[in-house]
């Protein structure tokens, strides 16, 4: 056997293996087409095929959200309302998310839940899904399309809530470092817009540095450290995300500096640090992007299939974590990288989705 025929044999073997792999997948494809055929005929919320497309799945917030959703899905499954639930991870690639939505349209899903990677880029695909008779509900990071049901929090209110508290705390006077999320990301820009509108009313509050960082501890700590070394005499920190707040507070603690007020989020690492430095006079106000947004989205989709007139825009109130109720939220036994939040009672969910 010469080298050429060995190569040929390898090529043929590889093709055969690939074909065998495909036929192995066959069984699954048959069952899924059968399922979609059955659900197409059902008009009410029965045996719904639900897909969730998310821009990221690895961050701990998303993992917690997935767990909460799976919990609700198993409830809906035993009630016979949902028969299948699949998660699609776009891994940060918005074009990939568009492909996922189109795949779900082709596979005749009944409900598409989406956590959007771009506030505008998914609109044509999502509207195509709506036109195909699919119930589309977005939560957390929302698209701008008005044809889908959107479950979210008011990001501008988030920013103004934090800024108002900080301005009161500083009695309307002082220099502040602003810790914002990545530039060009809608959530980050919206939160900052809400805050900037408040700060404008206090001419004596000076934003000495406006820092942009990933919502991650390590890059945020570096970004804060360089801003802080340029402005060591600040009176407060406006932060629009938990990891950013933790980075700022951690730097102040490490350098043994005055613990000025830092606004926060329900990132457990921040809550724990807040708790342990309360006795040193550290004070904060935190809010949360609650994971139960996903549950509300799922319940809204099912309700919509049942004929409930679900409102197009569902704004979920922002929780308030204060110096007083901090103990109810912080989870000292859980890792820093988690977002403690309590389930929303079913009665509250029903009220929000118009039941």
């Amino acid at each position, binding site marked *: 056997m010469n*080298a*050429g025929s060995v*190569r040929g044999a*390898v*090529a043929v073997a*590889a*093709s055969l293996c*690939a*074909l065998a792999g*495909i036929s192995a*997948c*066959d069984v*699954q*494809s048959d069952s*899924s087409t059968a399922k979609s055929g059955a659900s197409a005929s059902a008009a009410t919320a029965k045996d719904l095929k639900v897909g969730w497309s998310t821009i990221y*799945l690895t961050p701990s917030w998303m993992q917690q959200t997935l767990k909460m959703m799976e919990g609700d899905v198993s409830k809906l499954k035993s009630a016979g309302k949902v028969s299948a639930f*699949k*998660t*699609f*991870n776009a*891994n*940060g*690639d*918005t*074009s*990939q998310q*568009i*492909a*996922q939505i*189109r*795949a779900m349209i*082709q*596979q005749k899903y009944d409900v598409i839940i989406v956590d959007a*990677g*771009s*506030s*505008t*880029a*998914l*609109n*044509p695909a999502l509207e*195509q899904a709506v036109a195909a008779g699919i119930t589309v509900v977005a939560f957390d990071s929302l698209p*701008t399309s008005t044809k889908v049901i959107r479950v979210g929090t008011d990001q501008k209110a988030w920013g103004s809530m934090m800024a108002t508290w900080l301005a009161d705390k500083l009695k309307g006077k002082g220099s502040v470092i602003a810790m914002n999320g*990545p*530039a*060009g*990301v*809608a959530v980050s*820009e919206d939160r900052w817009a809400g805050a900037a509108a408040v700060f404008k009313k206090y001419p004596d509050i000076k934003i000495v540095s406006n820092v942009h960082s990933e919502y991650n501890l390590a890059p945020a700590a570096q970004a804060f450290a360089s801003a802080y070394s340029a402005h060591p005499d600040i009176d407060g920190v406006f932060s629009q995300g938990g990891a950013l707040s933790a980075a700022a507070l951690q730097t102040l603690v490490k350098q043994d500096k005055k613990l000025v007020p830092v606004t926060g989020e329900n990132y457990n690492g921040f809550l724990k640090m807040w708790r342990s430095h309360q006795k040193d006079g550290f004070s904060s106000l935190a809010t949360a992007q609650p994971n139960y947004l996903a549950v509300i989205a799922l319940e809204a989709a099912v309700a919509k299939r049942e004929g409930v007139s679900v409102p197009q825009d569902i704004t979920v109130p922002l929780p308030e974590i204060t110096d007083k109720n901090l103990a109810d939220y912080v989870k000292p036994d859980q890792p820093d990288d988690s977002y403690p939040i309590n389930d929303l009672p079913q009665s509250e969910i029903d009220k929000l989705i118009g039941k």
Partner: protein
Amino acid sequence: MRDRITSAVRGNTDLVGLLVLLLVVLVAYQHYDSSLLDPASVTILSAQFLPLILAAAGQTTVMLLGGIDLSLGAVLGLAMAVFATYDAHGAAGVVTAAVAALCAAVAAGAANGTLVAYAGLPPIVVTLAVSFLWSGVTLIVLPQPGGHVPGGLVNAYNNGWNGLAVPALVVALVLAAWKVLRTTRYGLALYAVGGNEHGAYASGLHTRGTKIAGYALAGAFTGLAGIGLAVQTGSADPTIGTPYTLNSIAACVLGGISFFGGVGRMRGTVLGALAIGLLTNLLLFTGISPFYQLIVQGVILVVALALKTYLTREAAV
């Protein structure tokens, strides 16, 4: 006849492997989506793949010159932002917006090329550095997702215009233009400079000019990809381009473009981009857990590359 087929296969061993992979993916795809070959599906799929194919064409041009473009995603985002923020209304507006976006992308490409050719810096360093620059400029043009593309254009692109798959047509036109360009003096110079820069210089080629023009051409391809993405999504997003940098390199490598320049063909890149696009879609259909999808995708890429290298080693020896 038999001889002709054998010689055609001999000359394209690298592409034959890729074609087999593509065929396998297509057969599998057909199982999950029996409407694959309907005109409507061709339109939808070509609309989805056009940005990657054109971005990979841009990357190919740079790689043929022996470089690599890490700023591709940023330039793509810039073109997209310029196109959508122009707020075009009517055909004339769209043409103006497209010209403006292309000019921005070509200028960015030419700037990259000039830095590589005259500053004598390695392309990987230059393009990494300017990728920050171009994403900054993009954020100035468009601070957050938005902009506007006429609804009629979005619809024609995504759902076909009088039954024509517009994106597929655009890709065909670009390929035809490339085929013509390859036969010109410039096309030969591009391969010559990428394959052996000193030799090309010694034979009297203006190697620096060739490089700058090549990077500018890559900018044009990338700009078209950005315009395509804007039309596909009906808007622009300043951060959406980033994944295209690495995906375009993957498509080129799979398509047989050498990292060392001067070797590879555009048709290989297009097939590579198609294979990657179809493969990701296929994995969505199979319903494997999302994390396993990434593993499967990686394994298939590695196996495909290893097989291709093994099968074509003969040609290199």
